[in-house]
């Protein structure tokens, strides 16, 4: 399955005109770049871990990069100065894509590191992580727990050794601050012909709904806009 996917990708990349064919269900490179950039900015902007990018975006981008690097390796064979400059351009672009992917994944790891137990605590939260990320988080938590046990937890009485107590109505598992302020831009309603996005903002002296016009940037609490960001009607900036 993987091999055929990659092969299909390769064929796809060979034919630049296929990108403009809107009957083609495979996203074009430009669409992928836009989706990747948006995923990057959103992930960098939110204090909370966002769902792992949908539709194998990261895998698809990685495959594109792999194919491009192979092409560069083939082209390095004939070293005439003209192709040399084209190579520099192609490699610069590859580095830019790699930077975005790395930045997304590293931002995610930072969030997982910070609140490992929180993201592992419910099945619903676990769906936001990719398989590798779950493996990473589990292992990270195991190591940490082992370290705590051997350094101090082990000498506590049995009933005080838990790391996920909810005694006294307060959970020991801390999560990210969902009420923190964020800058968001409205992308327009996803309803057909819709223009603005209606957001319900909660304030100190009153709550109210505000329509945010397409392209407008506003400051809001993350919890108020989280839903529309996940729906793709708004993006963080």
């Amino acid at each position, binding site marked *: 399955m993987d091999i055929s996917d990659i092969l299909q990708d390769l064929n796809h990349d060979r034919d630049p005109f296929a990108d403009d064919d809107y009957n083609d269900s495979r996203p074009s*490179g430009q669409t992928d770049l836009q989706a990747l950039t948006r995923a990057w900015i959103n992930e960098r902007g939110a204090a909370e871990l966002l769902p792992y990018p949908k539709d194998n975006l990261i895998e698809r981008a990685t495959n594109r990069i792999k194919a491009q690097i192979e092409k560069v390796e083939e082209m390095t064979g004939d070293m005439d100065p003209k192709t040399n400059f084209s190579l520099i351009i192609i490699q610069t672009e590859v580095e830019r894509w790699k930077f975005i992917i790395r930045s997304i994944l590293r931002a995610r790891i930072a969030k997982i590191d910070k609140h490992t137990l929180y993201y592992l605590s419910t099945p619903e939260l676990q769906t936001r992580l990719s398989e590798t990320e779950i493996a990473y988080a589990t292992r990270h938590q195991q190591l940490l727990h082992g370290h705590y046990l051997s350094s101090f937890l082990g000498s506590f009485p049995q009933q005080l050794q838990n790391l996920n107590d909810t005694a006294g109505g307060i959970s020991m598992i801390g999560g990210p601050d969902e009420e923190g302020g964020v800058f968001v831009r409205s992308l327009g309603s996803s309803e057909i012909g819709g223009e603005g996005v209606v957001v319900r*903002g909660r304030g100190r002296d009153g*709550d109210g709904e505000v329509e945010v016009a397409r392209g407008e940037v506003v400051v809001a609490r993350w919890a108020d806009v989280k839903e529309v960001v996940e729906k793709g009607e708004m993006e963080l900036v």
Partner: protein
Amino acid sequence: MALPLPPGLTPTEVAFLCEMEMVTVVPRQKLESLDLLAGATQPLRPPHRVPLPLWLALLLKRQRRANILPPPWLLPASLDKILKHETEISTETFSPPPPHPYAVSVLPSATDHISPPFLPSSTADSPPDYLPYHWLELGEILLDACSDDIPDPDRVRTLLRDLREVRMAKMRASTKDLEGGGISSLRGVGAMEVAEGREFMVGVMDGLRKLGASREAARREREEDEGGGAGQGDSEDEDMELE
């Protein structure tokens, strides 16, 4: 491994993002079409103008293979007009952003949800009277890399600095709106301004929220009691909550 940065793009990341903006280039040398990851580029044939992403345009410029056409809004006359708008007409808010180049139609299309840096707001045929989202970074980068392509670069530099100062004052003043929470609009704000102001604005917001938390909770409780006791809410807010 993990990224040791606080939430939100840093100014250098914003500059990286800005390099994805499209600019118009006048090639000085031939270059065949390149099969890039983001799609094939148009072949360069002097003296035909071609739109290219800024990072590629800068690469060509540095090797003297092309000239960059400054966007119309970066010309002294346009900046003058915008500055006048910022200081005389809308003294409290930012000047309006450029209108979205792709209107929403009845049929959903791929361009409906495109946002900067992928909108053509800095090519040679972009509107002259509006500052696009990446105005400050783009202006600085172009002044730095190709001041020989920009008419009267010193004047442009001064105007950019004036605009920046006027708008920074507005950004600071906008923190007053943050006091009661809710949604505050920053229509027309630029990317670099967001990146610079983020820490301060979010800090103010979070601080005020924590100070007002008990008041907010008390109000919520009161509204809930009233709504439950009377059976129907008498304010709009409660009506919406019931929905």
